[in-house]
């Protein structure tokens, strides 16, 4: 490492970019991390540019061209209404990412806040929050989703609400247990003895210790949420037709699985790739976020 990079890293903005770049290099150094990053970037790019890349209007029905096998015109074939599956998979990726990123982001922020409150606050508040978390966790996710959908009707928003509510306890619990362990750590006491206040302790010392594991958990949670969305859409309780989603593509295709397996395969592969990508990325992020695991002296 050159002398100048060391100097820059602890000071202003260039340093922040530099450490980001260094983290990126650490991810790329591991084969699985690199694969994960490539997959994630691929999924994100294809979802963001879906409208550009999609060769057909995803909901355009062409009944004469129904259930066609993959060809040069229809890369992944067509479904029972003659819609281009490739276009539908691309647009479906947008929905999958939107649901997972927005709802996990929300769940993460709320869970982090509640977890810190539970970990730092008085005992009664901790107990109350834990009771709340455990009550929510005690519902099976799908049953809970069914109940919510019955109340509010099937829509993308409902799916997101379900995800946020069921995921908050996961983040909350983790942040709480980390906070509890850190609260009495000697370096926190040392910081207090040197005059650090409550918010400095939280922001400067608890958060950086919690955020690493939290982001790893979140990145591994993304595939889970995508499968929930796909699952609920498959059951007809998520995205309403004709909006394409990976779940609805699976749902549409599965009635014809014996004669025309490609819709199911086309709907399943992106789920698998995204799941693998985020999982690999999450695992390599763990090494990046914890300086102790970097194996450098």
């Amino acid at each position, binding site marked *: 490492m050159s*002398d100048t990079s*060391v*100097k820059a*890293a*602890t*000071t202003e903005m260039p340093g922040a970019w530099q450490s980001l770049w260094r983290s990126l290099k650490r991810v790329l150094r591991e084969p699985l991390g690199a694969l994960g990053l490539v997959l994630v970037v691929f999924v994100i790019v294809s979802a963001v540019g879906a409208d550009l890349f999609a060769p057909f209007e995803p909901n355009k029905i062409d009944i004469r061209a129904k259930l066609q096998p993959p060809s040069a015109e229809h890369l992944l074939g067509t479904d029972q209404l003659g819609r281009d599956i490739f276009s539908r998979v691309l647009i479906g990726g947008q929905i999958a990412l939107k649901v997972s990123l927005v709802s996990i982001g929300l769940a993460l922020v709320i869970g982090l806040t509640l977890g810190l409150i539970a970990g730092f606050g008085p005992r009664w508040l901790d107990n109350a929050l834990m009771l709340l978390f455990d009550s929510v966790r005690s519902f099976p996710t799908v049953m809970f989703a069914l109940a919510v959908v019955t109340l509010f009707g099937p829509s993308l928003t409902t799916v997101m609400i379900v995800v946020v509510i069921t995921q908050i306890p996961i983040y909350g619990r983790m942040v709480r247990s980390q906070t509890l362990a850190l609260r009495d*750590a*000697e*370096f926190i*006491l*040392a*910081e*207090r*003895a*040197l*005059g*650090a*206040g409550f918010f*400095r302790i939280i922001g*400067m*010392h608890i958060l*950086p*210790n919690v955020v*690493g594991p939290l982001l790893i958990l979140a990145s591994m949670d993304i595939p889970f949420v995508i499968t929930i969305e796909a699952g609920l859409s498959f059951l007809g309780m998520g995205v309403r037709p004709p909006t394409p989603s990976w779940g609805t593509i699976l749902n549409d295709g599965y009635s014809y699985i014996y004669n025309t397996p490609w819709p199911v395969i086309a709907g399943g592969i992106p789920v698998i790739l995204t799941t693998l990508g985020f999982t690999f990325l999450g695992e390599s992020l763990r090494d990046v*976020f*914890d*300086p*102790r695991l970097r194996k*450098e*002296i």
Partner: protein
Amino acid sequence: MDANNVLEIRGLNVEFASERGRLRALRDVDLTIPRGSIVGVVGESGCGKSTMINSIIGLLAHNATVSSGSISFQGEDLLQKSERELRDIRGQHISMIFQDPMTTLNPVLSIGTQMIDIQYRDQIPKAQKKARSIEMLSRVGIPDPESRLDNYPHQFSGGMRQRIAIAMALQAEPELLIADEPTTALDATLEVQIIHRLKDLQHSMGCSILFISHHLGVIAELCDFVIVMYGGEVVERGTVRDIFHRPSHPYTFKLLECDPARIAETTRSLPTIPGEIPNLAKLPPGCIFADRCERSIGLCREKIPPSTEFAEHHWARCHLAGEVSST
């Protein structure tokens, strides 16, 4: 309060509310730290050393209460201060270093980040704070401090981490440094290095040090005054010369006898003080040490001995004070 004293503790009583009842962890503790001096505290585990430190810096556990006494720091009673005022004192005027250097630094932040962050009270540019951190690191003997600012705690050895902790604590040039067994977790050669470094820094900065240690040799080497604690009481205090050469409390006497460095002949079994430390929830009516004391007389089990100054600057809590030393 004497203006020459940085810290004066008078009649400090601290109690813990516990399931076993009221634990009287500190009873009538007196302590004086003259400006620019090093005061050592010795005593076995659980004798109240940590409780005393925590009451000074205002970080007592939630179930602890100070029932009486005063802690004057530079003429102001710390016990009357609000949490905010205490926070301004901590780190600026009173700093602390801890026993285990492996756990006193945040593992996920580089030491530069931590050292610069804790200077948050100073309204100076970051570059200046950084320069100060670099200077402090070189003063405590970290080689090549500029490039090491970017390293994380796990990239340093235990001795280096303890130096970093000292650098952080002395950065704001406090009037009082509390060192809670800073060398216990280090090996013997490092211990000597750290002690010498501390003494040098104390000389150049002119601060006072409250030094807690199990190690009598370190105390003898480093300190000007010594207080001996037992079961939540200060049983004896005086100059380092008085304590080591004219111990006046039977406990101090026994403690010195047990120091492996002072044993003349080779032995397989190290000397110990028979008996157990008293239960703080059920205190005996008389002297706290009477049960284990070879010299105890009837009076010892009936009446708590007062702290008496039987020679100049030499106090002991013993009915027989002044007599023991002659034997």
